[in-house]
């Protein structure tokens, strides 16, 4: 029986290595299928950036028994919704369907897992290369401050580090991908042994196991060759770049190497972010926006990757305000936090926010299924809801201050985006 942070899960592995996690939960007559392939842009090499994301696009172009454009159409016709996403560390594909269409979803996912190469063509590849280049131009090149994250990660991580290049890739790399590279990428990374299948929702367990066996068990697997090893990154000195962009207001970004996902300091960095910038009375926002009135906004964000983490601080300056002044105040506030501590109210507010956000996410089967996959792939324990919540609930003020001392007093990266 499931409770709100302890779900009923059936976890097993097929002979071909595919991990399966079933989460029966019948609050709505829906099912959500969520597959993680343990490959992302972190697996790419210099000169071949963007392949993982391009490949995600290719996975919607049809497979042996599913004509081009029909993957989407079949799901929509059944009343479902679907999408995929690529990050540094993984690629996921998901659909939510009326529960009577579960077999359709499994058929589609297994066909492209097992038989994608059979219908890979140059036309499809050329088409999706164009689509991805449009995506890059639309979302990054043609947006104010659109290149900020690319530059920041490029400054934070050395060129051979998995996180140096953006997941979308560089246009000059995307343009050059050929069929052989796409095919090899599939063979290397898209196999059952490198993936994890979660189903959440209203389904019969035995029937579903049979369907999974029918569709996925016959798919051959390959072992994944490369292993990425974690490398701690230490900046020997501060790094700085001023980049001119088509913007009207100057914007400051600071990046500090911090804790990776599920590291003992990861939750503390999240809470630190809340204390610094989550609401009107948060340290940075209150000081910079209300008291000094020198920014339009101020944000902090703990990026927690599988291999490394980064704590970001950003602020958009009002006209005629010096970014140097803003930066000085940011460091003043960090120092105050470290020296004077934080209040009980601040930490409780942050914890309550996180706990209620978790509760709100349970409305949605797709969100639950994705959590299960995240826990499985990063912790090898799909039922880690309680563990994850307790990471936050059990934090002390001292641990948060220690995280600030450990990460926000070291060398950092500074990017200024200024008008052309």
């Amino acid at each position, binding site marked *: 029986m499931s409770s709100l942070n302890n779900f009923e899960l059936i976890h097993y592995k097929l002979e071909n290595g595919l991990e399966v996690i079933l989460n029966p939960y019948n609050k709505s007559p829906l099912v959500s299928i969520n597959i993680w392939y343990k490959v992302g842009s972190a697996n790419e090499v210099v000169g071949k950036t963007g392949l993982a994301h391009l490949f995600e696009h290719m996975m919607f172009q049809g497979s*042996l028994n599913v004509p081009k454009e029909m993957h989407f159409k079949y799901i929509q016709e059944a009343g479902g919704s679907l999408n995929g996403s690529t990050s540094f560390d993984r690629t996921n594909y998901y659909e939510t369907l009326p529960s009577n269409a579960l077999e359709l979803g499994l058929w589609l996912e297994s066909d492209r897992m097992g038989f994608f190469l059979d219908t890979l063509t140059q036309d499809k590849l050329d088409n999706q290369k164009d689509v991805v280049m449009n995506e890059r131009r639309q979302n990054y090149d043609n947006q104010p401050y659109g290149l900020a994250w690319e530059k920041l990660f490029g400054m934070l991580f050395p060129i051979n580090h998995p996180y140096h290049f953006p997941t979308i890739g560089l246009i000059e790399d995307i343009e050059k991908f050929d069929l052989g590279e796409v095919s090899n990428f599939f063979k290397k990374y898209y196999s059952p042994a490198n993936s994890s299948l979660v189903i959440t929702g209203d389904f019969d367990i035995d029937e579903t196991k049979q369907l999974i066996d029918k569709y996925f068990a016959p798919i051959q697997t390959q072992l994944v060759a490369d292993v990425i090893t974690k490398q701690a990154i230490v900046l020997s000195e501060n790094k700085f770049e001023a980049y001119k962009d088509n913007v009207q207001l100057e914007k400051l970004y600071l990046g500090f190497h911090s804790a990776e996902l599920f590291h003992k300091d990861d939750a503390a960095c999240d809470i630190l972010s809340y204390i610094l910038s989550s609401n009107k009375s948060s340290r940075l926002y209150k000081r910079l926006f209300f008291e000094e009135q020198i920014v339009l906004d101020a944000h902090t964000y703990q990026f927690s990757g599988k291999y490394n983490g980064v704590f970001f601080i950003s602020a958009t300056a009002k006209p005629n305000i010096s970014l140097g002044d803003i930066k000085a105040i940011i460091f003043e506030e960090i120092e105050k936090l470290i020296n004077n501590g934080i209040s009980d109210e601040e930490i409780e507010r942050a914890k309550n926010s996180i706990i209620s956000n978790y509760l709100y996410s349970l409305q*949605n089967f797709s969100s639950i299924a994705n959590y299960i996959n995240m826990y499985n792939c990063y912790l090898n324990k799909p039922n880690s809801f309680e563990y994850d919540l307790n990471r936050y609930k059990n934090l002390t003020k001292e641990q948060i201050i220690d995280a600030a001392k450990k990460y926000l007093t070291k060398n950092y990266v500074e990017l200024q985006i200024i008008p052309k």
Partner: protein
Amino acid sequence: MTQEFRKIKPSEKENYSFNIPIPEQIILDNNISLLYLYREELPIVKTYIVSSTGAKYDLHGKYGIANLTAMLLDEGAGKFNAFELDDRFESMGTHLEIGCDFNSVVFSILSTSEYFDESLDLVSQIIKEPHLKIEDFEREKEKIKTRLIEYSDDPGYISDIHFQKYIFENSNYEKPIAGLIETIETIQHNELVNFYNNNYASNRLKIVVVGNIDRNHLINKLNNIFNSWKTINFEERESNFNRTENKIYLYKKADAPQTEIKLGLRTTKRIQPEFFAKTLINTILGGQFSSRLNSNLREKRGYTYGIHSSFQHLTDTGLFSINTSVKKENTFDALEQIYYELERFPKDLTMEEIAFAKTYLIRKLPISIETYSQIARNFINISQFNLELDYYNKYAHFINSVSHEEIIATYEKLIKLDEIITVLVGDESITSMTDKNILLSN
């Protein structure tokens, strides 16, 4: 080697059933309409409070005053200053968002059941007793002006506001919801306070609540909060609209690698049964991934990351628009293909396409009512457009009843190619790629 069974697409299991929730309508003591649905699976409550005080009620020349007023409401209210309000919401884990559109200011509240009462108390103070202090007014006024400076490089925002300007010229909808820097500059504190006093009242509110909260408790709570709040005499503002003519405008954005394209025209407000024909038209033309526009411009030609169309319904008018972003060199080829799709739609629309669209719209009802937030948003439609309470239960029937002939007739009535306005946001060099007459918008 593949298995033969994979060649056959599996069918859906029969005997699938789902319940479409019907809200209960309760008229509170002072005639405020409440739509309510009890749900117990999770200890949370989704609430919308909708106030008919949107941007169409901006004072003449003071465009942006409705939005600025909405921004100011939670900068101190009742017994609490802005920080205290925010801290209290965060402590409870309550999400409050206040948004202004043309018609309304919408208070969107997601709370746990445990903190529902206190959350509602605070929101009611925000609505009924905002401080509207002059120092907060000055600060928020500067904030929105600075924000508009920031947006002036955002191609999506620019295309939206310029498109709006040409489509709704000389009407209440012409100016952006956030206003213009020059109009916000002229807004005085006393004018904003008067705007608040003259527009916010109990008879301008509608409420939707979905979640784990007892009905009688909720009714008592809302009555206690609102039944002694003022009502106001209010005259709805008339809107007049000009007919548009087929024109292409360019807003120059130097060195833009992409051209943002937005085109469309004014149509009719939401009336039934025409609404269902419009919904089917949109689904087939550009309203989902497998639509004609997306299949052509993205999947066949690779011109774009995505293109979509929509019909929007405001209380006294409607709008049809198509949006996309393309590589600048493909700007006019993309436009040509968009027009190709617009022209051919009534000529070769197939029964198969209509069947797919009907199936898609009807079968996605279950996933569109999965969360409390989704259910509550659907109920807002019922409330805003005075639909029958069981509208969503009849939706499948309404959609299925639309014939091929009705779709064509509605399309030909509404989509007049000689009235389409096109706004491009991109590099000026694209004007040399066409012999079309391009009017400059900046």
